[in-house]
């Protein structure tokens, strides 16, 4: 099977109701229906979840590792962005 006939799809599984779908891995498949079946067969055979998403890998836009400095480093010294920076009144309780 060549790559252009069976492209790569990313598989996302929701472990239980209320949780978010999480990335589980990838599979090869010719189209969305076959990708869904392959995802079911490969990633949910041990009761890993109750909902599946499959997304063509080529439809995902990923950040460029070379942009890491610009994209992510400036957040490193902004500790006041964490909610723990603020003192909360007792009445508010846990946030």
């Amino acid at each position, binding site marked *: *099977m060549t790559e252009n006939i*069976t492209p790569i799809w990313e598989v996302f599984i929701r472990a239980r109701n209320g949780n978010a779908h999480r990335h589980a891995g990838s*599979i*090869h*498949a*010719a*189209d969305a*229906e*076959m990708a869904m*079946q*392959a995802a*079911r*067969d*490969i990633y949910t*055979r041990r009761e890993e979840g109750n909902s599946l998403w499959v997304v063509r890998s080529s439809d995902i836009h990923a950040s460029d590792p070379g942009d890491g400095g610009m994209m992510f480093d400036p957040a490193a010294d902004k500790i006041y962005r964490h909610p723990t920076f603020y003192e909360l009144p007792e009445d508010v309780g846990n946030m």
Partner: protein
Amino acid sequence: MTDNVLYTYVVRLADDAIILSQRLSEWCGHASHIEEDVALSNIALDLIGQARILYSHAARLEGKGRTEDDICFFRVERQYTNCLLVEQPNADFAVTITRQLFFSAFMLPFWTALKSSGDVILSGLAAKAEKEVAYHLRHSSEWFIRLGDGTPESHSRIEAAVDGLWMYTGELFDVDEITAGLVKRGLAIDPETLRSEWNETINAVLARATISRPDDCWMQIGGRSGEHTEHLGHLLSPMQYLQRSYPGETW
């Protein structure tokens, strides 16, 4: 409790499941890609699970102290009563998928109907097996449609698979005195009542796959009475080797 008639019926169902499972297992490590390798093995495992429940039930019905393994691994070819369809060789992927489609399209309405069997083991198994076979049918249908409506090569292979296996589909609907008697007792299903659903399923999948339905033809039967095609013995040899070489071996 000894019930030889029900024993015979249950063993037929078990034999169908274990023989098809063994056939599908032959793909393990050989399928076109890892995804399909696992998919076929999953189906094989579903069928082993069904067969185990059925053989254990049969052993109790027989009442001679035999186990599921005794019935599965210590009967010879002529004592096996699976339908001829499930023992047909994998040949190519098109044959494997077509065989699965023909069988699953029958077993889905079969298990649905058997949920109302008066035998609690059979009705309980039917509820579990119905869901499993629903997926087997979807999996084989979707592959069948893509191969039929695919390249000239895949189309001609699916067409050849349909033509080659069609003569074995009639046996699914065969009724003998074993089945007829159990239908009267409310334990078994009259397969004739499943024919219209099988036809609807098959016609719809064939149409989407751009494959024409073969003309009605003479149907080969014999599996239920132990008269098999030449392929079954070659399947049983590797399947039974371990238990025959090391009787009672477990792991």
